[in-house]
């Protein structure tokens, strides 16, 4: 058993970043995730593992620090919250285009604009559909506990390097701020410079002796070559869709209705299921772990095997619900429920929504 601690989600994430063998964290403070950089600067990871921590002048700078650092083959990470993540979209587009493995954590707050500092899930479109300009995808993991704020960090780094693709951990203000018991994993040693050079021959960390120089770029002025590069990216995304869909099912075996949710909403949905089951309603939960790739196939299967309706529960005006609708493809009823602007819904509200929007009609 690993070390047990009572931690905030943001602190567990920061500790996991050090333990995952990250080489550098570059970030800019923003509520509700400033504990990440506070924890890291207090913890002196340069002494613990040799990891670099730097407070950048903006989120624009921190994402570009990730571009530079990630392009040398080092494990780099930043964290922010919604408005800051919007500032990073330019950099993320370049990073996706140049195929640089980086980890970005979004502890989502209410929007649009400056919004508020309460938990929300209204950045789903931005996270899963690209976000910046051009055809690209981020791999998106959605933790629903403090434990997963820690556990998903090494998973995210592995996926980033496996596919040379940016990975996002999409959390929210509730998971970031709440305290829970967390079992920490043992520290994974950082790679040495020699190991980095050997493992990632594409990385720009000094031209190999007697070898060719490496170039990291997202530019090709020849449209035929740019189309070829885009096709290559799309092939990679199809591979990720094939291999990396992750989700969890609760009481779906006999379910006539299914709640689809992730993050904080999945926890609330679990309680709602308990209340509904007490009333005799056969309901289950499909909890998304990867938001992209999305479990279209699994939802399609559930719709085909007799589930009468799906309720997408998310703290947004209805974003993930569009993917549920795509998967269900009109076969059965799909509805959305969610509070907006930083209000967290109650289990009772979810119960009522299922009864009114799915069962009642």
């Amino acid at each position, binding site marked *: 058993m690993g070390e047990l601690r009572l931690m905030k989600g943001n602190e567990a994430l920061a500790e996991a970043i050090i333990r995952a063998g990250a080489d550098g964290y570059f970030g800019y403070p923003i509520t509700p995730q400033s504990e990440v950089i506070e924890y890291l600067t207090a913890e002196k990871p340069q002494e613990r593992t040799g990891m670099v921590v730097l407070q950048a002048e903006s989120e624009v700078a921190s994402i570009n620090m990730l571009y530079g650092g990630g*392009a040398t083959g080092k494990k780099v990470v930043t964290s922010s919250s919604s408005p800051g993540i919007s500032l990073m979209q330019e*950099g993320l587009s370049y990073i996706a285009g140049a195929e640089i493995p980086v980890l970005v954590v979004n502890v989502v707050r209410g929007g649009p604009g400056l919004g508020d500092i309460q938990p929300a899930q209204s950045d789903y479109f931005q996270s899963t559909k690209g976000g910046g300009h051009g055809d690209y995808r981020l791999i998106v993991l959605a933790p629903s506990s403090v434990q997963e704020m820690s556990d998903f960090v090494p998973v995210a780094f592995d996926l980033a390097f496996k596919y040379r693709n940016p990975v996002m951990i999409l959390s929210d203000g509730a998971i970031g701020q709440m305290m829970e018991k967390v079992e920490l994993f043992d520290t994974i040693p950082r790679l040495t410079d020699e190991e980095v050079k050997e493992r990632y021959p594409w990385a720009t*960390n000094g*031209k190999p002796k007697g070898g060719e120089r490496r170039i*990291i770029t997202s530019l090709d002025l020849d449209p035929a070559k740019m189309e070829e590069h885009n096709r290559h990216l799309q092939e990679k995304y199809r591979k990720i869709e094939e291999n990396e869909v992750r989700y969890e099912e609760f009481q779906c075996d006999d379910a006539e209705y299914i709640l689809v949710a992730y993050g904080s909403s999945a926890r609330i949905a679990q309680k709602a299921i308990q209340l509904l089951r007490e009333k005799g309603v056969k309901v289950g939960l499909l909890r998304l772990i990867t938001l992209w790739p999305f479990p279209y196939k699994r939802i399609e299967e559930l719709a085909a095997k007799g589930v009468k309706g799906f309720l997408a529960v998310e703290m947004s005006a209805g974003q993930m619900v569009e993917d549920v609708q795509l998967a269900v493809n009109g076969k059965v009823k799909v509805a959305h429920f969610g509070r907006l602007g930083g209000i967290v819904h109650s289990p009772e509200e979810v119960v009522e929504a299922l009864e009114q929007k799915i069962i009642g009609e």
Partner: protein
Amino acid sequence: MSEIAIKDIIKTENLVYKKTKLMTDKPLSYCPGCGHGTAHRLIMEVIEELGKENDTIGIAPVGCSVLAYEFMNVDMQEAAHGRAPALATAIKRLWPDKVVFTYQGDGDLAAIGTAETIHACNRGEKIVIIFINNGIYGMTGGQMAPTTLVGMKTSTSPYGRDVSLMGNPLKITELVAQLPGTYFVSRQAVHTPSAVRKAKKAIRKAFQNQLDDAPGINFVEVVSNCNSGWKMTPVDSNIWMEENMFPYYPLGDIKVDGEIIK
């Protein structure tokens, strides 16, 4: 001179100049008469002379020199517009033993990337910044730059830069020299053999300082012509540069070993 006489002259022992192997053989994409090619060559010569071919990471900007990585035969990254100092910051911090430089134009460094420039300088990142100032946006077709002179005509200041509407040309090099984080700040040109020699000396000093782990940024501005953007012949553009750019952007070292000298 007869053919035989030329053959007699072309011999290894008579070689007085050779292209550095750190410039690729790809023909430069710059307009004939432009200073970019010379500036590229000087940087690559210095890296070769310092023996750092295998330990250098360069960052190309967005602008005319967006394809600098096609010509510079070292590991290169292509940054988003203005962001090169942020990339360089992370690279140098993660690989402190490597030589890291950015190559940026005036729009890149002194307009869209001003925050990244000032803060990398202010943190005293141990990198080299090479700043090419030709007072115009060359690649996008000759629009006004932050360094465009007062009264200078560009496609977005077609009646000349009017200070009341467009502000003043930005002396960002003097500005960064004020920051304690800069160690060596110099302004050079590459339009005559003598200017080229001085510019190379400054670039060499900048890289040597980085190798010596000097505490701070080494920042070299190269005032250059843009004969296409300025709509002049290369020769006329160099005369115009001497008569108009140099009085506003005077050449020479501004800060040496962390001390402002002028």
